């Protein structure tokens, strides 16, 4: 789980172009959207792509993504349960 969380943070930094941020800067339990990292709807789409590209999980619409994408931790938990 820790390894997945670390890996996820790297993917987020890479795919979302979070330039001045290191994995240590990202709090696994803090909200990703609105507060916390302050990501937006375009980032949500990019995260959906990360799930598909690296973990084989296909989310068909961005609406079901909301609770899953709350924090890095909830994202990791979802991946653990659903990865191919």
């Amino acid at each position, binding site marked *: 789980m820790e390894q997945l969380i670390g890996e996820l943070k790297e993917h987020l930094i890479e795919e979302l172009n979070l330039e001045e941020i290191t994995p240590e800067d990202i709090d696994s339990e803090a909200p990703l959207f609105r507060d916390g990292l302050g990501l937006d*709807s*375009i980032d949500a*789409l990019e995260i959906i792509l990360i799930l598909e590209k690296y973990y084989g999980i296909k989310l068909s*619409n961005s609406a079901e993504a909301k609770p899953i994408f709350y924090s890095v931790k909830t994202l990791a938990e979802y991946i653990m349960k659903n990865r191919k």
Partner: protein
Amino acid sequence: MGVVVTGVGIVSALGVGVQSNIVSMREGRSGISAHPSILKTGNILPVGELRMTNDELHRLADIPLHKHLSRTALLGIIAAREALADAKAEPSKRIGLVSSTSVGGMDLTEGFFREFMKDDSAGRLRDVRMHDCGAITSAMAHYCGINAYTTTISTACSSAANAVMFGAKLIEHDVVDYVVAGGSDALSAFTLNGFKSLMILDRQACRPFDRSRAGLNLGEGAGYLVLQGDKNSAPNYYCRLAGYANRNDAHHQTATSAGGEGAYLAMAEALKLANLSPRAVSYINAHGTGTQNNDSAESAAFIRLFGENIPAFSSTKGFTGHTLAAAGGIEAAYSVLSVAKGFLYPNLNFSHPIEEFGLIPNSEFSEGKDIDCVLSNSFGFGGNCSSLVFVR
């Protein structure tokens, strides 16, 4: 000097020419097909595609095949010519062109790039000659007898409405005697895939303003108006362009603010310029793409502007799809005809209103109504919101 509309030209999935478009809407026949037939793509998604190949369009426009024009240019030329003939524009006068496009010549470029990517000496240069937006306008000017000022606007989905607006300014400031104003966009794999990556395409036919709406369908086409000063035009013009406005939502690059701030400001300012109160509006041709976001934001803006008295409104995108840069032009043309002939257009695929707002669009085509004032909306990426007001 007031600005009047003396010519109209339309090409869309409903067909070539104003008549085909009106007849289809009268008969409730949508131009949306289950998937593209002419556009080369692996995507199986509903689109508003004109069922004519580029070769057929060349022949229809009487332009030799070897000229190898972009599809966007061909659609534009056909629609602009219809509008100019309709206006009986005199070649001895200054005839200008304000065109718009978001796709440009991408329909040809994407074919070129496929080869070029493998080997940078491969790919036929004739496929990229017309890539940029200005090249489309240049071709249109050449084939439509334009002899005065031309320009090209590109502001995503509000492009053609902005073109009409700037065209009006050129008339008001006596830069030209006639101006052909509007937009053209052909379907391209680039845009289809682009919108797919944004997850705002519906896998079924779009359902503007419906509770269950799930996205837009892309379409292609071209729509142009001919504008003149009221002092110089023949008395039997279609209608007046009484108001217009361009405002920016300034909320997010692709999403609209929940309250539709930009939309509200554009509509309010357009009416203010026309010296009309919201009560004067007979019909709104909405932007109504069928996305969750737009239709909610636009509804919120309607309520904010009109309160309890929302006029008849509909989105015609259930017929044509979202024609991007051409949308503002095609829909301006529909709006002009609405005022001139009393047409009210139906909003296809509507069953239940959006819970939060409860607004119900017009579902039947009708004609001969007293339509004194039509508001036409076009909102797009980059926060661009434009509205046009046509009156009798």
